[in-house]
């Protein structure tokens, strides 16, 4: 199990796939760990990508700073990992908290990236997300990691995913509970206490960017992704049908396919962002379709659009 060193801290990472191939770097969400990307690793390696996964500081097998974890340190750790990949094309993707770290990286080191895929992501903390974050933090403090998982699961995945595992939720949650410590998760959550919106810096992201947003994501709803779409010049917003916040867990085949197709398009010079809005297919390999002209993609009912 290889480790990178950031100051006195160690960051556990894994590289798979052919050296020298275009690379995908995948950044975990808050309560996640690197093994949750195994399906992506397998799918992307099969399509001739190199795949880098890792545990953020405070997660899994990486070191867990006892009192403070700054988001700048996470970006620095990510930078170390990307330096390990050599000089070939690098595509960076992250979900939720990991998407935010990916955005920060793209703002700071965009020249190193060939493409960016923020998923279930946000650049600012409007009141709903701020209060939800505070409530989740209180849940963690009062009820521990298990209770935080209890809060997140029904918010972040669908009934279709939950129904078959409803009578074995403890085993579903167990690995996340084992590898995550309350204090480390709390430190990660408290790295938002001095959060400053990234919105004004988004236009500096010059790389092709595919923004993925679950149709039914109510933790980070469409409006938050719309901010990314409007502010990042070479971006496209792709709405993943019937998906919730944690669609990377629920729809790995589809999402890995979207990642691979995005990278293939960028590498082949076919990519055109144009701040367009698309709808992803229901299954891997299906066609993306443009969001119907004239309708407002920010609404849940078919209202005539007013946004560009």
């Amino acid at each position, binding site marked *: 199990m290889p480790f990178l060193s950031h100051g006195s801290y160690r960051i556990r990472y894994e590289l798979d796939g052919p050296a020298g191939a275009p690379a995908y770097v995948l950044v975990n969400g808050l309560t996640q760990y690197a093994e949750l990307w195994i399906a992506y690793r397998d799918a992307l390696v099969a399509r001739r990508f190199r795949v880098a996964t890792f545990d953020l500081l405070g997660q899994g097998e990486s*070191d867990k700073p006892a*009192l*403070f974890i700054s988001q700048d340190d996470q970006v620095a750790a990510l930078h170390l990992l990307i330096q390990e990949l050599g000089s070939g094309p690098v595509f960076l993707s992250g979900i939720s908290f990991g998407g935010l770290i990916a955005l920060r990286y793209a703002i700071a080191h965009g020249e190193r990236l060939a493409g960016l895929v923020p998923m279930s992501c946000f650049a600012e903390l409007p009141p709903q997300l701020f209060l939800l974050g505070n409530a989740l933090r209180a849940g963690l403090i009062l009820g*521990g990691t298990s209770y935080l998982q209890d809060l997140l699961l029904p918010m972040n995945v669908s009934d279709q995913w939950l129904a078959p595992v409803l009578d074995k939720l403890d085993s579903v949650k*167990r690995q996340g*509970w084992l590898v995550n410590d309350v*204090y480390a998760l709390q430190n990660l959550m408290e790295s938002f206490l001095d959060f400053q919106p990234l919105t004004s810096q988004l236009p500096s992201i010059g790389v092709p960017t595919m923004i993925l947003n679950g149709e039914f994501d109510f933790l980070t709803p469409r409006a938050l992704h719309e901010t990314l779409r409007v502010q990042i010049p070479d971006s496209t917003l792709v709405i993943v049908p019937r998906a919730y916040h944690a669609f990377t867990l629920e729809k790995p085949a589809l999402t890995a396919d979207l990642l691979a197709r995005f990278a293939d398009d960028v590498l082949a010079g076919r990519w055109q962002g144009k701040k367009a809005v698309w709808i992803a297919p229901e299954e891997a390999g299906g066609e993306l379709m443009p969001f119907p002209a004239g309708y407002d993609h920010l609404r849940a009912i078919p209202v005539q659009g007013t946004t560009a």
Partner: protein
Amino acid sequence: MSAFFGPMDAEGRVPARQQTRVASFLVSAHGALGRRFALALPPRLESAWQAELNAQFYNESEIVSLLLRSTSWTPDLALAYLAATWETAWFPSPAEGIPDPTLALAVDLATLAHAVHAGIRPAALLPLEANANDPFAMALRRVEFESGRLLQAQIMFLKGESLMPFRDAVSTTLERRHAEVRKLWREMLESIGISRSENDAKP
């Protein structure tokens, strides 16, 4: 070596030798915290934060009491040496870099409590097949759960404004305490055939 207790007996209970050594470590650590909280507790509370001190004292006492009653104890000759090593490690050691000696001692106590409450996860040693109704398993779950809540007082104090000028000293002291407690915990677990993650193996 396994990452969990075991092999479990036919009724899903942790072997008595493992129970004895783990419970002894926890009684030593939480007992030391309880004693130090008791010494810091005035007969009459004069500040709001002292109410939390009172709660910490009684919660540590509850943890010790719970472990004493729920563990299947078995004779363990090595405990005499081990307990002496553990007890020595809990001795007060004022945080360096903080000129006020009272504050330096308070930081030391808070960092020790943080290291014990945050870094020791006894319930994570229970394998899937552990009997959920076994009192020892239940006690470990309760110790870990209560530790997560007790920890909040240490986090609030150590991250608080009063210690902002000493942030580096606090972080250094806390990382040192975590490393000490983690090392003792890891060594104790290895002595009963349990090996935790690479992360715990960090010196």
